[in-house]
């Protein structure tokens, strides 16, 4: 993994300050969605070769949840944003 992550609040910090939660899942399905759709959302994860979006928690710094784009092949991180910016009006 790249050893420095650019937190939008704290600046460049070592990865040791962060806790990785994993893939940013697809938007939450409707409550009444089919079982297969829910199963996919809860359990099935892609394991992409290349760009990957992940939740990272800046546990050793500002303690904000971030969304980070990481290339699983080169371990380069590109965009890092606060997770609150993902909130959209329509999504439940």
């Amino acid at each position, binding site marked *: 993994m790249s050893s420095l992550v650019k937190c939008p609040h704290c600046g460049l*910090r070592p990865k040791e300050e962060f806790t990785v939660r994993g893939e940013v899942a697809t938007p939450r399905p409707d409550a009444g969605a089919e079982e297969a759709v829910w199963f996919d959302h809860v359990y099935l994860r892609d394991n992409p070769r290349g760009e990957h979006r992940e939740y990272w928690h800046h546990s050793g710094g500002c303690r904000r949840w971030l969304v980070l784009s990481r290339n699983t092949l080169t371990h380069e991180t590109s965009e890092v944003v606060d997770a609150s910016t993902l909130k959209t009006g329509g999504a439940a």
Partner: protein
Amino acid sequence: MRDYPLNNRCAFPHPDASGAGASINLAPVKDGFVFHVLGDAKSDEAALRQALAKVAPELGDDVRKSSPGQWFWVGSIAVSDVRLAEIQAALTDTFALVDQTHGRLRMVLSGPSSRTVLAKGTMVDLSTDLFAIGQSAMSQIGHIGAMITRVEDDSFELIVLRSFAGSLWDELQHMAAEFLTG
């Protein structure tokens, strides 16, 4: 608000036995207060300073940002429960205060070698041109979470959770060993 009175007791076994050397000194900050200030998503530091100057001018406005909408407000004089309640009441609509005086300790590492000593434990760049006087960073020293603030030219104040203060104190003594005399 507190349900029972708190004793402000120093967390260090030998608080005056700071590692004094020609180029390094470590000392606890024994008096004063640490308040955690929480604002909403839209709150900003200028508004906070303005509010504090109006509500509690005697306590100063030394606020250190820890996260978006969150600060540590520190000062050198003791604040009574009654006074704290008054301040909170005056700030109600905008900022919430949590007294952390008992929970977070301050210590000051100073001297020409202080930057070198801290660099052994933190990965924040403390160079004079990047980390200005008054600037703060919430980070880690080794594995211990700490807020580092540059208070003077070669002087850094560390805010650490009380239960980790003893460990950090010991660790800093080790980190500074090469600069200690006698």
